[in-house]
């Protein structure tokens, strides 16, 4: 099934894309999506332990399963304020 990935800030710059469309197995979790992203864009792999994620614009856990059409966002450490 197909999901959309959104990348922000330095992740976006390192991957060279703010959005990706990727195909994942039907039982995939957000962690699986992230692995596919790091496989395709190894430059973002160092964020492995410092990533936050969201699904359809709600914060989520990496263990959460994804569904077809979901928008998965990966967020580097934040610096707002």
């Amino acid at each position, binding site marked *: 099934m197909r999901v959309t990935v*959104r990348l*922000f*800030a*330095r992740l976006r*710059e390192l991957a060279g894309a703010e959005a990706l469309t990727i195909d994942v197995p039907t039982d995939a979790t957000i962690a699986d999506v992230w692995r596919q992203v790091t496989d395709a864009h190894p430059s973002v792999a160092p964020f492995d332990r*410092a*990533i*936050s994620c*969201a699904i359809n*614009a*709600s*914060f989520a856990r990496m263990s959460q399963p994804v569904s077809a059409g979901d928008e998965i*966002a990966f*967020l*580097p*450490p*934040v*610096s*707002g*304020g």
Partner: protein
Amino acid sequence: MLAVTRAPLSVDALAGAVEASVRARGKGCGAVASFAGLVRATHQGRAVRYLEYEAFDALAVKTFEQIRDEARQRWPDAALGIVHRVGRLSIGDASIVIIAATAHRTEAFQVCRYAIERVKQIAPVWKHEFFEDGDAWVEGAVADPADETARARALAVACA
């Protein structure tokens, strides 16, 4: 009152909106505390030319809503406004304005401080600094809105 915008920020405008929301609930407030974060000219000794802020707008607004709801749990009558600016900002521009309106001043300061601490912990917003000789993304906290330890830390700072 909980928003991400590319427009310059105004404390008066946001305070007016927050106060109107209090009146609309049939309440009054006697104290309004605000916080504005301004772009500084230097960062760790390097001269900053300008900044760019980027946000995941929809998630940032939801995060601000969570922060407002958290604040209401502790301070039921508090009204809160949070607006974060994104895009290119110059030295001295406000990147964020927070308004806390309450009956009395102690709570106004507490709510305002709580909100800025939580924004820094969990809002999906990123600061990109541009220097004379390069640029750098600032990376602070790993955002985890469900982290109760972080939330307790923010409460402790606010109610010190």
